């Protein structure tokens, strides 16, 4: 983690009898090319039983807001999100979480 980074928001929720967990973390970081907004957003859906991430949203450049949808096998595969703010990115992440979890069970 970046030395100057500060966790400003971090919460998690467990669901589906504790098999899945979603957490959202926001780090406040100095504005630079990789994070022009001055914060790093990380939204993760984890299958805790298998201990693997399933979905991940983050916002670093050159991709902007994007989602990793082929975890854990293909970490480089990203889907660019057509959103302009962290609010929209979080909303989209949560709706994807519901879809993924409902399809998997």
């Amino acid at each position, binding site marked *: 983690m970046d030395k100057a980074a500060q966790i400003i928001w971090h919460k998690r929720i*467990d*669901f*589906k009898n504790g098999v899945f967990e979603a957490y959202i973390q926001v780090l406040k970081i100095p504005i630079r090319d990789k994070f022009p907004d001055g914060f790093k957003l990380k939204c993760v859906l984890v299958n805790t039983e298998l201990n693997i991430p399933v979905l991940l949203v983050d916002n670093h450049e050159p991709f902007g807001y994007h989602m990793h949808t082929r975890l854990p096998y293909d970490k480089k595969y990203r889907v660019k999100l057509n959103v302009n703010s*962290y609010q929209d990115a979080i909303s989209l992440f949560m709706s994807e*979480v519901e879809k993924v979890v409902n399809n998997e069970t």
Partner: protein
Amino acid sequence: MKPKKDMIIEFLSLKEFGQRAIREIKIALKTGVPNIQPKNVIQFDSVTSFRGFMTLQKIEILLMISNVKPKSIYELAKLLDRSLGAVQKDCDALARIRFIKLQKQKTGRGSITPKLAFDYDKIVVKLPKHPYELRFKAAA
């Protein structure tokens, strides 16, 4: 003596979790004051989900860890008169959700000691409030 903190179980839907995140992140970014989930708070999306997770066997494990403080999962399994594999599985699940922590001993065989995530003696389940209304006129 310092009073023990309770373990608190809260409920909110995934939608509410997302909405709350958006609201609180905005405030945290504006004020610079961090808002981090305390270690004594666990959030579930529903009572059904929590009940599906917290079986009677897991409650017994928590009771045993809190009262008897077994030094290993093997000892815990003996105390509960259950198979080691089943107790191990339940302990792993409890550790994942952060009810307990599994500490590997540095000495001896390096066995794993199950401990409460922090020193709590009570789990407070904050049931969601569902407003309920029964209109007699309509029912008649």
